[in-house]
């Protein structure tokens, strides 16, 4: 399970970190922990462009987990 924690990081660091995780772990599911709508939107857009499916899990407070699964 690969988890990328981008809480409190401002644009574009969440996208950069997610992209690196994708490149270092091809074909693996990546969970990204975000705490802002902007990061959520940006990471989701990256995931869509890389053909990952996105599942949003609401966690405590304003945090949520984006579970990114690569399509086969």
């Amino acid at each position, binding site marked *: 399970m690969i988890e990328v924690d981008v*809480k*409190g*990081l*401002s*644009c*574009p*660091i969440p*996208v*950069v*970190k997610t*992209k*690196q995780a994708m490149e270092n772990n091809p074909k693996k599911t990546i969970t990204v922990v975000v705490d*802002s*709508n*902007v990061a959520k*939107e940006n990471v989701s*857009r*990256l995931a869509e*462009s890389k053909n990952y499916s996105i599942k949003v899990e609401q966690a405590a407070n*304003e945090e949520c987990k984006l579970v990114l699964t690569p399509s086969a």
Partner: protein
Amino acid sequence: MKNLFSSRTGIIIVGTIIGIGAALLQYLGNPGNMGICVACFERDIAGALGLHRAAVVQYLRPEIMGFVLGAFVAALFAGEYKPRGGSSPLIRFFLGMFAMIGALVFLGCPWRALLRLAGGDGNAILGILGLIAGIFIGIQFLKRGFSLGRSYAQAKASGWIMPGLMFGLFLLLIFRVSFAEGGPIFFSAEGPGSKYAPIAVSIVAGLIIGALAQRSRFCTMGAFRDVMLTKDFHLISGVAALLVFAFAANIIFGQFNPGFEGQPIAHTNHVWNFLGMMLAGLAFALAGGCPGRQLFLSGEGDVDAGVFVIGMIVGAGISHNLAMASSPKGVAAFGSIAVVIGLVFCLIIGFTMMQRAK
């Protein structure tokens, strides 16, 4: 609730509104090819407060106040108002300061660079190329793990400071307070500072753009960055819309005058137009947003963005006081050395704040 404005269509609509709005504000009185310029307008505010004494660029620009207040209200309604901060505030202050110094060597922020191009000013091409070069350098740091660090939730009141400041400035504008005979608040009698659209139009335009930009995350620096970093053409489609519609509106209003010489509030020094904007672009890239975006973020409670904005306003004061800001006559005596110092500062920050990617 799905955020309509964060879609591709949304960002194009916002870019279109900003482009037409800027041309319209110029038509209604704002300075040439400066319907909206975040750097220039913050500089005018610095001048009005007496932070610099360049008599031709002093006015309390309502557009800036509208940007912050519009973003504040939009964020409140969207449930996105969230006071946060603590991500290298002092570094952000200096990035803001040097960004302003670079922008004032070129004479404009990224928005104005686009608006200058849309008005036919060929010198803007050098500025935009410089901007892209600066962002490209910033990306090299980002790819190697550059980050200013995490921000954390802040006290509720800290997020009110920037909107409160802007509201206070608006009151000073409305009541034209004079703090001493012949003293501030200064309002230019001639030059760019004396040219402005009616206050009501400016503040309403600012509020609308502030609200829309908050919802859509419009950012000119981010637009170029995302294309180079992740081949993401989302933000750039909004920037393209701004350019195209400002150009079209300028044609309609008779404001399009192609050329390099004699352009409004511009000079023709290609080298320093390029390098000034390169410094600004690098500083924006490291700080994560163009000057407009920093204003919108400060409205939604991002205290660090507020620090960047204050850095820019102080930077404008220093820039004019220490003969670093260009004028239509050309680059000022200390403009070039200031850009070099700024670049060195940004490179040191870039190199020292890379965390090894895990």
